[in-house]
């Protein structure tokens, strides 16, 4: 139509939207001159909003008439039959493209979607697939969309033939690539659930890359895949792959050079190079060396260093010269360190673990060290770090740590009644990140008809900003006639202690502390006449002890210890070791002088990475504990309440709690002065999403026992058990340990308890 000035604009055909909405997006307004190009531009603008199916401009006198037809809204969108290609991620990705309930229906998008689905299926070997789409109009300008997929028979790879390979056999090469021809199911012991015989073009292209790098890693610099043929059997069930290769020859390294600004002396860099002259060239080795050099430089602050290996092959000699060209870039400084994801932990609690400071040279090792220290905090489940250059400057970087937190507090409260102990109330509160400050609080209370215990401890890991920790603890215990367990004596004790942990290196610290304790054993040692004969209420051993040492003991104690912990996590660690030696002894002036020495060593081995048929997630953990108590100076005997007991969920599993070790005359556990226990666990990867984050499954083999003294240690008296254990870090009750002992080396008079569980934070 001829150009005119629009005195008025009228919108027609609007149903769901308002004319106001159309006017917002219309690039024309009242009073504008409307000509051919502007109206075309207006129409395109309205189309771009994606809200309209059809737009046209008309003229009624001097009024510009905009008539639109809104795109119908999708009332329901269903897709069935797509077993092979992801159900919900597919729906999610379609939602993003605007194909979901509530969005507006675009026919072109649906066709494109159908084709895309079909191409996906063909790329995965479903050559007999059939994808139908169906759009039903509803009143109120809405539509129902249904896509149904008939997948049909998937074509399996029947045979892969590699032609032209002399130096490596077909079998060797078939192991390298991921695609595989159909073998009887028993041929894949470990990978039976993943059928690798499904053909997919991406996997094929990926495999060509793997083949290429395999040969490059063996020195075949000139290797290439000349052509690949994919052919289908007439019945469309079998796929035949023919891979034609030209191996070329294996090249050896003639010489290794360094060029560019090396920052450190060449001898240092050469020590990092694992390849040697004369050795067959390997692309992998060369790239690894380049990475090691650049990460080494990063430790000197050169975060942006680039090391690229240049190779100059000599085709006659079949040798290659490798030059590592080092471009250190600017020395980098850290502008800001930021934490995200810490909903419950204060910034300072994380920042004090940092080994990298703001306003200092960037050191990759320090950043990595900081990340591991964060991961070792009890209340952090996972910590990751990213270094980003600061826009607008060439040598400043920001270091961003993102953490995911683990429930730090546990709250247990139980009211019960047991025939042996009568009415029972117990409760414990523990929080390893109290008010986000990283301080640890533990409170425990228990009352039943036989015992009232109350204990608490408060630890501030950063009592001084350099990391000296302080723990204050106190306890009150009043127990009577523990008949079921122990040799039947009343004990009430009260004590308090304070200990300091002083770091003496990045991984180890020294522990020193002082404690005061008073214990009183009150029980009848002379017999009472019951039914005519004298019967004793307490065991012979205890009676003898009381006769010799009396009943009340007031002791001062000096606690010393050394600990070295290099585990990568405090719960569910997969690497590192945790060794500690403790030596506490009752100071002179105490009523009884005895010492208490213990050695514990926990070591993790990433056995999974040792051989490639085992998945990397397999971890072997061994946990050894040896403890000895004995008198010194004028001490005559170690009080029974300080004896060691073994057996139970946290020591030798499969034996009833505490029942492993010497017995008293009532055949109740009396404990001993020498304890050796060892727990070995093979951690098995599970398919749970929370594997090794908050759950862990393992097979265990425990061995150990308690002896009345170090001299009575008898190797074949050690008891052992084996079975399976499951650990779960529960939201409210701390670490739950459940174990079932399948084999228990039970001897006469042992009490076996195959199924055991315990919870609460063990540390």
């Amino acid at each position: 139509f001829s150009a005119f000035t629009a005195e008025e604009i009228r919108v027609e055909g609007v149903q769901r939207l308002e004319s106001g909405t159309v006017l917002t997006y219309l690039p024309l307004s009242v009073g504008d001159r409307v000509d051919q190009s502007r109206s075309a531009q207006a129409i395109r603008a309205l189309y771009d909003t994606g809200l309209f199916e059809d737009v046209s401009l008309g003229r009624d006198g001097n009024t510009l008439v905009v008539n639109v037809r809104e795109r119908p809204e999708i009332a329901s969108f269903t897709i069935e039959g797509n077993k092979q290609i992801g159900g919900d991620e597919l729906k999610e990705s379609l939602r993003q493209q605007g194909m979901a309930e509530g969005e507006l229906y675009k026919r072109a998008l649906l066709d494109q979607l159908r084709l895309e689905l079909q191409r996906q299926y063909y790329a995965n070997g479903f050559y007999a697939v059939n994808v139908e789409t169906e759009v039903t109009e509803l009143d109120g300008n809405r539509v129902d969309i249904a896509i149904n997929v008939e997948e049909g028979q998937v074509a399996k790879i029947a045979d892969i033939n590699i032609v032209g390979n002399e130096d490596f056999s077909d079998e060797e090469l078939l192991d390298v690539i991921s695609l595989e021809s159909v073998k009887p199911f028993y041929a894949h012991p470990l990978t039976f659930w993943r059928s690798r015989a499904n053909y997919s073009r991406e996997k094929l292209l990926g495999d060509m890359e793997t083949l290429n790098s395999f040969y490059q890693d063996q020195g075949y610099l000139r290797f290439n895949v000349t052509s690949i043929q994919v052919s289908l059997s007439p019945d469309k069930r079998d796929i035949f792959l023919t891979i034609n290769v030209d191996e070329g020859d294996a090249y050896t390294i003639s010489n290794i050079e360094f060029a560019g600004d090396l920052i450190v002396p060449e001898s240092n860099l050469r020590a990092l190079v694992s390849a040697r002259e004369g050795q067959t060239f390997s692309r992998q080795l060369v790239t690894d060396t380049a990475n090691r050099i650049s990460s080494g430089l990063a430790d000197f602050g050169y975060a942006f260093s680039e090391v690229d290996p240049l190779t100059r092959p000599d085709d006659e000699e079949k040798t290659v010269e490798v030059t590592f060209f080092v471009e250190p870039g600017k020395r980098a400084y850290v502008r800001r360190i930021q934490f995200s994801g810490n909903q419950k932990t204060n910034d300072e609690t994380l920042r004090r673990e940092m080994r990298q400071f703001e306003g200092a040279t960037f050191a990759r090792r320090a950043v990595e060290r900081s990340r591991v220290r964060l991961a070792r905090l009890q209340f952090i489940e996972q910590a990751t770090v990213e270094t980003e250059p600061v826009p607008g400057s060439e040598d400043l970087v920001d270091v961003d740590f993102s953490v995911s937190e683990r429930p730090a507090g546990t709250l247990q409260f139980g009211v019960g009644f047991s025939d042996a102990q009568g009415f029972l109330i117990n409760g414990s509160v523990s929080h390893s990140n109290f008010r986000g400050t990283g301080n640890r609080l533990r409170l425990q209370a228990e009352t039943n008809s036989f015992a009232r215990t109350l204990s608490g401890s408060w630890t501030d890991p950063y009592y001084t900003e350099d990391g000296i920790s302080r723990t204050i603890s106190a306890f009150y215990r009043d127990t009577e006639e523990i008949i079921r367990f122990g040799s039947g004596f009343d004990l009430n004790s009260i004590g308090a202690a304070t200990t300091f942990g002083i770091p003496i290196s990045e991984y180890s610290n020294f522990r020193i502390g002082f404690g005061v304790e008073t214990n009183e054993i009150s029980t009848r040692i002379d017999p009472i006449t019951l039914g005519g004969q004298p019967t004793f209420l307490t065991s012979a051993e205890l009676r003898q002890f009381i006769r010799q040492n009396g009943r009340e003991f007031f002791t001062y104690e000096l606690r010393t210890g050394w600990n070295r912990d290099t585990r990568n996590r405090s719960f569910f660690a997969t690497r590192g070791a945790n060794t500690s030696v403790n030596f506490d002894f009752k100071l002179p002036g105490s009523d009884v002088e005895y010492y208490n020495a213990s050695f514990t060593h926990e070591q993790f081995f990433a056995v999974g990475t040792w051989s490639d048929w085992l998945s990397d997630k397999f971890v072997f953990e061994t946990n050894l504990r040896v403890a000895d108590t004995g008198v010194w100076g004028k001490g005559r005997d170690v009080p029974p309440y300080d004896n060691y007991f073994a057996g139970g969920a946290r020591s030798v599993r499969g034996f009833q709690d505490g029942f492993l070790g010497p017995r008293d005359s009532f055949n109740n556990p009396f404990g001993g002065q020498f304890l050796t226990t060892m727990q070995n666990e093979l951690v098995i990867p599970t398919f749970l999403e929370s594997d090794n984050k908050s759950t862990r499954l393992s097979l265990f083999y425990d061995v150990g026992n308690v002896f009345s003294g170090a001299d009575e240690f008898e190797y074949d008296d050690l008891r052992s058990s084996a079975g399976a254990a499951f650990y779960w870090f529960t939201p409210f009750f701390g670490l739950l340990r459940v174990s079932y002992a399948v084999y228990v080396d039970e001897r006469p008079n042992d009490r076996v308890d195959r199924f055991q569980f315990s919870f609460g934070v063990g540390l």
Partner: protein
Amino acid sequence: CASDGGALPEPSPLPDLDRQLIRGEVLWRRSGGDGAGEKVSGFRLALDGARVYTANRNGRVSAINIEDGSLAWRTNTELRLVSGPVHIDGRLLIGTRDGELVSLSADDGSRQWAVTLSSELLVPPAAGNGTVVARSLDGRIVALELATGERRWTVERQVPTLTLRGGAAPLIDGDAVYAGLDSGKVLALSLGTGEQLWEQRVAAPAGRTELERVVDVDAELLLADGVLYAASVGDRLVSLALSSGRVRWSREIGSRTGLTFNPSQLFVTDRSSRVLATNRRSGATIWTNEALAYRNLTQPVMYKSYVMVADYEGYLHWMIPEDGTPIGYADVVGEPVRSAPVVVGDRILVLGAEGTVVAVEGVFPDAED
């Protein structure tokens, strides 16, 4: 084989004939080796008057006397054989999965020469005029001296991303060699120089997915009275002028196996194992026999003026050329038959998929009594 979707229909049962005009009598049966197994292969029977030769996937090559089925000689080449043998001038040519072309002496199977080509030799070679022409899976066509195995020329053609397993053997006629390609074309090359004489498209790829675009010319080429007949799986059967490749006529018939002829008619087994007869001059269909549909029939062969095919259960079937009515069938080998039976005088030699060779003679009971 446009995607007809879904699994393939069931093979039809044996036709119930009230009277069997012809019966097959097995003269002798001999196992030549372990054959080809279920997989598609390029194994054929090769003859030189007195003996029939077979090759097998485990590397075994056997020579059997046609007269009584006794074993003339047997050797194990220790190679991963996949095609041949082809007999010419006292030689046997066989192809391996690793791209080796080997020439053995037909007298005792001793190795004469061996050449490694660029890819698998799934398709049997052609020999003639002192030349061997081999087609490797990567689309290369190589001519070699028959006597020495020395290369003469190599021609390369693009291979589509997805093809059908198997292929048509090249055909040598005079100074030209004709080859059906996986791209749906027939190529004519000069035997001496490898120069292209002409190239004719048999079927054009159509459809949006790779599967719908498969148009391999896998059926054996047929040369009869100066006319070349070729069939593609893309539902096209053409008759080409030998000199120029010009299409004389073309019909909507797709075949994967091949065709045979008699003076006036052409016989072809199509992709769904229907047997059709067409007029040689015009290509018009005369009759269609669907009784043996989906029984995976071989290429038809003329036996005593009757049309004969073999099927997946090892049966031979005979039909009257005029109207295609079945006149008899015989259970001869008990193994799937994939390569066409070979007629020697009154005898029919059949190669089973598991390597068994059977000699059969067609008997007409009515005629005797």
